[in-house]
């Protein structure tokens, strides 16, 4: 475990070495919050959305803040993994005394934490200014573990997409589609509470709802029972997806052919 902790710390420090880059990337959340506040302010004013969702405008804005922090801060490894597969540099990582997937996981979480902290900083300032104070401290406390689990679930998907490079030349399109599933079925643009009933049932049966909607909803309505249920479901999905990832990885490595170097 010590070596993965070191990889995590190294990646954390790497990111802190380029605060300018991080600053510009984090500004995106200000734009999104401004747009969401315009859309939902009008929607709240002209419809009965508040009764049907059971959340005031202030809470929905904080929902979107955490949802965007999860989405914009998540580890992005598909391209790195696929690049390593395509240029053969995967060979140098495979013979090192660490697990290839755990190496990327540690590095990815190191990346995400710094990015998410800065995004949460900008997001908090923006939403506080346009919608009012944040949820109680219990919301922040409960959000932390479920966001980490959300990123872990995302990592499994992302790594599988990266490993597709063993069978196809271009993996980016698969990432686009996956991202859209997370954004729409995960409740990034519109909370699942506002979906038609049949679509809500469908979305709840998929893991994407527990990457964005689950953590963001818990954040604005912290409740121990909801927290425990979400942790259980996330752990279940993580176990299933990690197992699938492990098998995909084993099969992929068997296909690996390195020509000199």
């Amino acid at each position, binding site marked *: 475990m010590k070596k993965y902790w070191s990889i995590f710390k190294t990646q954390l420090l790497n990111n802190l070495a380029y605060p300018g880059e991080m600053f510009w990337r984090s500004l*995106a959340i200000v734009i999104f919050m401004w747009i969401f506040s315009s859309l939902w302010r009008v929607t709240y004013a002209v419809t009965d959305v508040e009764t049907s969702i059971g959340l005031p405008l202030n809470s929905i804005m904080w929902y979107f803040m955490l949802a965007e922090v999860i989405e914009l801060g998540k580890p992005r490894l598909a391209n790195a993994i696929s690049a390593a597969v395509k240029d053969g540099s995967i060979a140098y990582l495979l013979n090192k005394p660490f697990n290839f997937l755990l190496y990327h996981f540690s590095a990815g979480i190191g990346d995400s934490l710094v990015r998410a902290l800065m995004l949460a900083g900008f997001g908090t300032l923006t939403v506080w200014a346009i919608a009012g104070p944040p949820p109680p401290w219990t919301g922040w406390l409960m959000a932390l573990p479920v966001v980490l689990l959300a990123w872990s679930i995302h990592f499994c998907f992302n790594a599988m997409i990266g490993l597709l490079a063993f069978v196809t030349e271009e993996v980016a399109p698969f990432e686009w589609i996956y991202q*859209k*599933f997370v954004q729409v079925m995960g409740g990034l643009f519109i909370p699942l509470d506002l979906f038609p009933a049949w679509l809500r049932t469908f979305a709840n049966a998929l893991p994407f709802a527990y990457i964005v909607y689950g953590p963001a909803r818990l954040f604005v309505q912290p409740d121990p029972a909801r927290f425990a249920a979400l942790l259980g479901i996330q752990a279940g999905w993580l176990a299933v997806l990690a197992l699938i990832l492990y098998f995909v990885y084993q099969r992929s490595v068997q296909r690996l052919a390195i020509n000199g170097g």
Partner: protein
Amino acid sequence: MRELKFLAAVWKANLLSSMEFRGPFVTQVVMMMLNNAFYFVFWVIFFDRFENIRGWQLSDMFVLFGVAASAFGLGVMLFGNIASLSEIIANGRLDYYLSLPRPVLLHVLASRSIPSGLGDFTYGIISFAISGHFTWGGLGRFFVSVILAAVVFVSFMTIVHSLTFWLGNASGFSMVAWNAVITFALYPISLFDNPAKLVLFTLIPAALIGAVPVEVVRAFTWQALGQLALGTAVLFGLALLVFYRGLRRYESGSAIQVEV
């Protein structure tokens, strides 16, 4: 005329180069269309629940997505280096273009094509065709609007990337501007208050890529077309001015670069 022939030759070379990898090319085009369709599901769900938001309905969103996606697709398909102009400037890769007897900006922008742009362009046409606002006259206005909006997008991003000449490397800032202009263009303009609208017509000209072209397509007035044409001309002129002013400050380390 001479420059048009040159552009046609560059675009043909780009297309032939993309077709060398036919599988990935087709995958990117098809997947981008699917990607846009999945994204649009959000608006289908939204308008299924709320039907009408300040005069905008789902059919209007189809037209908005149609124009914006086609304009963006056309821009990145024909002038693909608009995605990476700041890196090209910062890394000294303009040397190659400066040594050739062709307009530098035109040459550098057109030297690359982003294949997924064809997916966006095609998706936009389909989105307009099924919007319920389709007429043959509307299709003509649609293509005029798409061309003008594509010029707006490419000009705006050229201005932002050109800040690299003064700032050192504006790629982070360019990425924010890129996200901002596309995201704002895809939302109904009626959601925004007057100060925000002023920003969307000037600093981040998303209204000239989304809202105004939509007006030209679905409820044509000469005023809307004039507004779009004027905005396009101003931004195009500004892009040339800022890029060539900045080019006077350009320095490179004479590194050996290979442009493939």
